C-alpha cells in the first residue's frame, strides 16, 4: 500500500455541541393516584374500579408493599398508591 492511499487516523478527534435552545423536557413520570380504602374494599375490587380488571390487584399490592403485608388484609382509612393504568 502506498503512503498516498493511507487513511488518516481520526480516532483522537474531539467534538462537542451546544445550543441556544433548551433541552427537551424529560418524559413525565407516570402518574400515581392515591385511594383511601373504605369498608368492604378488596384489592381486586379496587383494581376493577381503576383498571377495569380485578386481576390487576397485584399491581396495587406491589406498589404498596411498604404498607401491605397481606393482600387480603386492607383496612378502611388506609391510603393506597394506585399506579397509572398500563
Amino acid at each position, binding site marked *: 500500500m502506498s503512503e498516498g492511499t493511507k*487513511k*488518516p487516523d*481520526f480516532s*483522537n*478527534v*474531539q*467534538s*462537542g*455541541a*451546544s*445550543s*441556544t*435552545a*433548551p*433541552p*427537551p*423536557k424529560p418524559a413525565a413520570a407516570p402518574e400515581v393516584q392515591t385511594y383511601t380504602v373504605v369498608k368492604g374494599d378488596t384489592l381486586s375490587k379496587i383494581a376493577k374500579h381503576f383498571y377495569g380488571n380485578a386481576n390487576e390487584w397485584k399491581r396495587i399490592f406491589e406498589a404498596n408493599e411498604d404498607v401491605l403485608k397481606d393482600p387480603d388484609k386492607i383496612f378502611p382509612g388506609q391510603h393506597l398508591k394506585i399506579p397509572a393504568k398500563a
Partner: protein
Amino acid sequence: MRLSRFALVASIAVALPLAFAACKQEAQKPAAPPAVAPAPAPQAAPAPKPFRVSSIELGNAIGSDKRVSLAKTTFAPTDTIYASIATDGQSPSVTLSARWTYGDEGQLVKEDSLAIAATGPATNEFHISKPDGWPAGKYKVEISANGAPAGSQQFEVVAP
C-alpha cells in the same frame, strides 16, 4: 232603494281608495332588517411553525450566541472547526446530528448529536478539533434533523 244604491256606490267609492292605500302602505313597509349575522367563530391559535434548519455556516470561532464570528470554508490544520446551524420553528424534541467526513470516500471523522426543544429561532453548534492537526484535504459536514437530511457544507483544510 235609490238611497241604498247611492249608499252602496258611495261606500265602494270610499272603500276602494282606502284599500288601495292600505296595499300601497304594505308594499312600502321597510324590508325586515336582515337577520343578525352570527358572531364569527373565535380564531383558532395559529398552527405552530414546523421545525426547519434555515442555515449552516462554518468558522473557526463562535460567539456566545453560537454564531460563527467569520464564516469560512478553508481552515488551518490547527483550527477548531465549528458548524453553526440556525433553526426555526417549533417541536418539543428535535435531535440534530452532525456527521463530519473526510475526502471523496467520505471517511468518517466524527458524528455527534444534540437534542433540543425547539421553541422558535435558535442557533446550534457542533465543533471538532484534532490535537495533532487536521490532515489537509476536503471535508464535509452533513446535518440532519430527526434523521432527515437538513443540509451540508463542504470545507477544506490547507497545510500552512
